[in-house]
């Protein structure tokens, strides 16, 4: 059986990226926005792996490991900030955060 062509993977990753972007734009809780960002990062990972296979080049695959590590670090920082906010305000709804404007 032939392996699926690269375009399928890239199309799927584009779809994932679009879903993630929609999530960021429409969700109003910090946690859900953050989850959507993680979806966008994984879309990029899928694209990187697919391209690495089609070019026969390992650099793209190693890049995926680095992006995964960065995503993990981002989770640590992001959840710490969200927890700090939740302790003060008992909510993670981003519409409550509106002191700074103008």
């Amino acid at each position: 059986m032939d392996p699926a062509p690269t375009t399928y993977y890239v199309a799927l990753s584009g779809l994932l990226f679009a879903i993630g972007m929609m999530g960021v734009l429409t969700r109003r809780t910090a946690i859900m926005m953050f989850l959507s960002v993680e979806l966008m990062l994984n879309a990029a990972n899928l694209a990187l792996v697919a391209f690495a296979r089609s070019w026969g080049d390992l650099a793209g695959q190693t890049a995926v490991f680095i992006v995964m590590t960065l995503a993990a670090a981002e989770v640590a920082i992001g959840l710490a900030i969200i927890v700090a906010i939740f302790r003060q305000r008992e909510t993670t709804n981003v519409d409550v955060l509106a002191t700074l404007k103008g």
Partner: protein
Amino acid sequence: MLTPPDVALAPLLPILLVLAGAVSSTVLGFHLPRRTLTAINLVLLLLSAAAMALLWSGPGELPATAFGGSLRADNAAVLLGLTIVAGSMMALLVSLDTAYRARLSFPEFDAMLMYAVTGTLLIAFSGDLIVMLIGLEVMSLASYVLATLQDSRRAEESGLKYFLLGSVGSAVLIYGLALVYGATGSLSYGGIAAATAGLTPGNLGLLVGGALLLLAGFGFKVALAPFHQWTPDVYSGAPTTVSLFLSTVVKVAAFAGMLRVFGGALQNAPFWASALQLLIAATLIVGNAASLFQTNFKRMLAYSAVAHTGFLAMALLGTPGLGGAALGYYLLVYTLMTGAALAIVAALQRTEAGMNISDLRGLYHRHPGYAVALAACLASLAGLPPFAGFFGKYLAFQAAFQNGYVWLSILAVLASVAALVYYLRPAMLLFMPDRTPAREYPHGQRPATNLTVALGVAAITVLGLLPNLWYGWLADPAIWELLAGR
């Protein structure tokens, strides 16, 4: 047969010295008072600057590289790195006086700041997209923490806004990186630049999409409209010392990344310059128009940082030789004048919300030194001739104009005329007769802030009168034409 990895320590040394400061602040924070750690970090930053100066390659010399060209200590990296170190030292010096009052006087503040500087240097020294990405994320993650670190509602709100929008920016940038890799099959700047010459139409579409996503991602980081919305909230909500760091060092590093990616790797790729031109036009209009209506001085400086992003980014539209030199000059001047202005705000403000513009009335009669220095910074930010800001703006406009962006240059000149209004209004208030009671923070000796402000103002004056002191090092077009490597 396996080839051993290409590890050279000399080009890594400036970064390792800063990282040593970050690690020692993390570890020694349990044993030493914070001021000692700050002193150690200042010394390490100076050593890092010295190490960069030693990496300067004369005419005909090849720049030092490590990891097979992934890390390039070329002259562009050295010049941008020195600008970054200058901004970081200003932030650390100011924090000596202000951190205690801002409830930031923890060793963690120093550690996070130095980790962020490590990331910024990695961007400046990057030779491929992956190293650039690592640097960008190390810088961004540390900056999110810096913005949140103060235990106040304002700082937490600014931190969450910065984090959510910044991580969206990073995700967009990483997806753009993946598409550029898909189009060219390479992650190194040199490989991408070589591959952009002969592309099939299918790959060209990927490349254009990737370049536009990279532009949007960098747009988030440098605050190009319409990706600038977080900037005023974060800069005005974070403690002033942190705003100083974010609006100078972090912006310089993001521009260093843009210069590497768009001036180096993608210099022959189509379409991104037209898109950038539209973003710059939007930034100039939004940034300058919003600054006109601010009543809080710190928030006005935040919008002025957005407006300056527009002016700075014009240099990217120039040919690499001319534009790189213009950007290098303007970035240093921008760092010095913004750093000095925010240092004065940090010294005089009563709360971390900064002061109202009307509170500046008659400052000359209460603090003559600060008033004159602030007037000099504002005149330089406005781009008035005796100061270095004028020459920086002139170089950036010239770079864009000579590359054929005539209407954008005209718009930029009009925008800087509008900018005169909001910079000169507070500058004139400073010297008005003193009728209001003093609204500044009354106490305290501020030797480190005074030193920072004096050095910053002296530097923008000297660089305005003798621009070649810094521009002379930048002027060689060969530095900026080899950004992507050979």
